[in-house]
């Protein structure tokens, strides 16, 4: 018999806005319902307006926890990656989003938390403690993280080197890291534009999962993870990483 423990919500006792911004935020029935509605709407939008296609879905692990990583050129990236998930993985998926942009005001925080189910990452603030919390939650709460290890959206379409943060989450664990390549997002919603441009196609390629049980949980280990993950993502890029290649015409 396993010992059974009462486990209060990780975000218990936080004021409403602090709760939305908390890395310990846990969804209840209302958040789950809002998030499910949002996911279905996004899925329908991507399918109709961007003819969203997913290739390599069989590479996704059977269930959480895992980390989904991809190249980053657009706000559509996190939406597209989360739209590729189904079932428990979709419900437990949290996109890592820039705190300054997505959690700046109360309204934005509510949107980011309830609809997108995002967790904030703040540039240059208490990174180590936050990453420790995320690492713990990934395994204990069996979550799915969607993250873009470049750190910011590419303005040119070329992929930037990966930051070591990814390694801090998974080094020394059996948690799979699933590399993805999203093609067409820059054309569909470039960083310079305020709104998406319907009609541009989106194509997601999911590659085989990587595991890093032997990577050390220190800077060298994290960098090794980042390097391997970056190489795996680059391998999925069409025609060896050229910025903005034309889309295949077949659908």
């Amino acid at each position, binding site marked *: 018999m396993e010992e059974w423990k009462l486990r*209060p919500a990780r975000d*218990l006792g936080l004021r409403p806005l602090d709760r939305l911004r908390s890395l310990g935020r*846990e969804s209840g029935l209302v958040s789950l319902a809002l998030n499910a509605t949002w996911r279905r709407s996004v899925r329908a939008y991507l399918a109709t307006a961007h003819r969203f296609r997913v290739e390599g879905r069989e590479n996704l692990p059977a269930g959480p926890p895992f980390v989904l990583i991809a190249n980053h050129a657009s706000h559509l990236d996190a939406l597209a990656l989360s739209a590729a998930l189904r079932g428990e993985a979709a419900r437990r998926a949290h996109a890592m989003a820039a705190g300054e942009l997505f959690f700046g005001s109360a309204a934005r925080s509510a949107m980011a938390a309830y609809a997108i189910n995002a967790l904030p990452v703040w540039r240059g603030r208490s990174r180590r403690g936050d990453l420790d919390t995320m690492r713990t939650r990934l395994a204990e709460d069996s979550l799915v993280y969607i993250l873009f290890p470049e750190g910011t959206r590419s303005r040119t379409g070329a992929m930037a080197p990966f930051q070591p943060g990814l390694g801090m989450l998974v080094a020394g664990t059996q948690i799979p890291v699933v590399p993805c390549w999203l093609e067409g997002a820059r054309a569909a919603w470039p960083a310079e534009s305020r709104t998406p441009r319907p009609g541009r196609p989106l194509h997601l390629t999911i590659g085989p999962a990587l595991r890093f049980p032997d990577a050390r949980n220190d800077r060298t280990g994290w960098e090794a993870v980042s390097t391997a993950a970056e190489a795996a993502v680059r391998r999925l890029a069409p025609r060896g990483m050229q910025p903005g290649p034309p889309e295949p015409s077949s659908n």
Partner: protein
Amino acid sequence: MIPHPPGGAFAHPVTTGIILATIAVLTVSGLAILWLSKSGRAKPEFRRELWLRWASWCVLLPLMLGPVLLGRPWTIGAVTILALLCYREYARATGLFRERLLSLVIVLGILAVNFAALDHWYGFFVALWPLMACLLAVATIPLDRPAGYIQRTALAILAFMLFGAGLAHLGYMANDPGYRPLVLLLLTAVALNDVAAFTCGKLIGGPKLLPATSPNKTISGALGAVVVTTTLVALVGVAIFRGTPLANPVWLIAMGALVSVAGQAGDLLLSSIKRDLGIKDMGTVLPGHGGVLDRFNSLLLVAPAIFHLVQYFLGFGLTQPTRLITG
């Protein structure tokens, strides 16, 4: 049937009396805190705490008493919202919210039992308690996850008992045309019971009641609250139940004592839950009070206890049409 004079919301003198008394207490306490602030007798943080509590009451009292004055559907609606808020805090504090299926069944159960009250369908109203206990007991079996079955089922059944079946009795009372003075009396007496326990405890002091459960409560406070609340409920009860079998000193005193004891028991019940979890407050919604449950814990057991006492002697809404929605 509770005797009631013909007329609108304020037809019964007890209704008017309770509303006026509430406004008077709020005004006097506001002035007292103002005097305390001006005279500089209290520490700033204590003054801030007092103001926060007072301001919370100013928002809370209209939200509690307003629906009762507005009418039957409003009262039942307010009880439903209160029940859902209480369940939300309980689920997040105990971790039961992670059991999505059970949480959904409990929420649907709370809605169903309050619907039964709104429909004035007593048979369904009382049937829901055993039926929900059975449903909660089997709901998670198909998940094929026996680990933690006993604990999650127990947490779920307790939740439905307290916030669903128990609290809904308060709303069901509104099916009686004479409900207003009784419901207002319960809402205010339960609050007064807390204040009386606190004040008597501070003034008299003495040994603690149950130090491991609630370190600030004293035996003198508990007994003082019983005396104060019993007296008040019995005296107001004379005016509410005049001419009925309940208008008998023995029963009125018993009713007053029941309000006080069940109120304090509800308080201690929540304290036990909080102690077991190792948390201080159930939430942060009400500044100076904590969560919704921290404020309404005393009502949880009072509602069914008083309902069935009055039901035994008088019944609720016996001459009123039943099954208003389901026909």
